[in-house]
């Protein structure tokens, strides 16, 4: 388990992974358990329909139908809770990658080993990608398997598509934390900037449809790429995948160049 930086980093997260896994399985179980009572309450859909449009856009995906399993999950889980979980994980991993080790001073061990700084950043990035994709996959698996118990009959392909977009959403903000951490060496700052950016782009996406001056910005929000095309019903949006991937790649390049050019803090 100590063959390279990637496996070492994933091993370090071992216990945290277990925690995240349990949290995800329980969270999905909770949503699945509530589903039958929701389904039998048509008033719920009316309630959502009657919400002010701003609220509906912020806390639910527009157009989702609460009376179907897919619409219910879209509103209850994928609009808010799942992105928070995955972004939280990815940002933590991205920030810990270089800035976190630097803050704890263990980075000296790595940088003075015969390993290039580029390789350190790339292997750390690989660990973040594996972790984020793993958690998203676990969430998807939990949805499909646990959904069976409540006869939700979720379309497996579309769940996979939604999880792909979810993982990419996490990686965009994880990439921000990674890049800021690599350029500045400050773990706190990198988490802070990524979190603020996540909140701002979430609001821009939610309100973009209604606030005219936000509308041109909406398309640039990672949340727009994540959910605007409603992946649980329409599958993968390849343009959205490309946009997210390019964003992540650019952020990783910034991280490498930033880290290669600066002093390791003491």
């Amino acid at each position, binding site marked *: 388990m*100590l*063959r*390279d*930086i990637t496996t*070492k980093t994933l091993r*370090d997260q071992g216990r945290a992974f277990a925690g995240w896994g349990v949290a995800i399985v329980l969270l999905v179980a909770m949503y699945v358990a509530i589903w039958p009572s929701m389904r039998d309450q048509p008033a719920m859909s009316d309630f959502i329909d009657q919400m002010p449009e701003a609220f509906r856009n912020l806390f639910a995906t527009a157009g989702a139908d609460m009376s179907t399993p897919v619409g219910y999950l879209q509103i209850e889980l994928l609009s808010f809770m799942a992105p928070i979980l995955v972004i939280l994980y990815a940002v933590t991993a991205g920030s810990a990658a270089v800035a976190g080790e630097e803050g*704890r*001073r*263990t980075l*000296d*061990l*790595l*940088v*003075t*080993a*015969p*390993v*290039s700084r580029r390789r350190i950043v790339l292997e750390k990035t690989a660990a973040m990608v594996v972790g984020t994709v793993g958690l998203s996959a676990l969430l998807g698996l939990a949805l499909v398997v646990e959904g069976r118990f409540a006869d939700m009959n979720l379309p497996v392909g579309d769940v996979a598509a939604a999880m792909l977009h979810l993982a990419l959403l996490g990686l965009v903000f994880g990439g921000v934390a990674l890049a800021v951490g690599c350029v500045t060496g400050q773990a706190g700052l990198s988490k802070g900037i990524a979190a603020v950016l996540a909140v701002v782009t979430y609001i821009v996406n939610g309100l973009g449809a209604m606030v005219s001056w936000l509308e041109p910005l909406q398309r640039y929000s990672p949340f727009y790429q994540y959910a605007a095309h409603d992946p649980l019903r329409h599958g993968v949006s390849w343009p959205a995948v490309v946009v997210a991937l390019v964003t992540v790649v650019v952020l990783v390049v910034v991280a490498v160049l930033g880290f290669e*050019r*600066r*002093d*390791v803090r*003491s």
Partner: protein
Amino acid sequence: MGSVITAEGLTKAFGDTVALRDLTLEVESGEVFGYLGPNGAGKTTTLRLIMGLIRPTRGSVSVLGMDAWRDAVPIHARVGYVPGELVLYDRLTGYDHVDYLAALRGSARPARVEQLAEQLDLDLRRPARELSRGNRQKVALVLALMNEPELLVLDEPTGGLDPMVQRTVQGLILDHAAGGGAVLLSSHVLGEVQRVASRIGVLRAGRLVAVERLDDLRAKSLHHVEVQFADTVPAAILDPVPDLRDVVVDGPSLRCSAPQSSLDAVLKVVSAHPVVDFACAEAELEETFLAYYGAGETDAA
């Protein structure tokens, strides 16, 4: 004997603070170079420049003929480093550290590890968070030495070690140099380096103020002279003798510190007066060092 470290006009500023100014220095293979100075003088900055952790503001430093910043990776394959403010991975054991850093070099656990652990009396099976500062220091030494590097860069490597283990470490350092390797050894006290170093450099406020062979320093070594005369002697009795320090003449008693080269002149002056008692003892090298290179600014005491 080739030059292993060559610094030329090496300067490092952090913002407005110049931590190291125009350092020019050579360390050769087979040599143990003691790098001395008070905390904050720029020792750690120098070592971090050599290890490519930080980038020079001006000037350059080359290690094994390669640029310390640009060619950090090939250099690190041939250098062992013990950082000053050492931190290990809390949850990893000594063996985990060994295996991880060996894997990063593309090798299996080096055979030398067991031997080093035995010499240092170190249990590599325990996680780092359970180790005392001294034992963590030993793990760092194993990590630095296990790949038989050509150069050792050691930032206060014996801090936190008991005197017995300090001896062992000094033995390892001497073996390394005897095998043709070079060592750059920083410390804020001469005592830690005087048994092993062949040359010392003295750093103060970011400037290298002296480089001296330890043998030359020993030749300058001070002697404490105390004389009790039968009668009061003139206060200026020792004025004709050069290179004396701390001269105190108080009625019939006299005290001073004299380098070996001045002892003859002191004796001749003293013997012109009736003497009741006379004592002369060689000072610790540390004291000689401090007398020449500034006690006031050193936290060595």
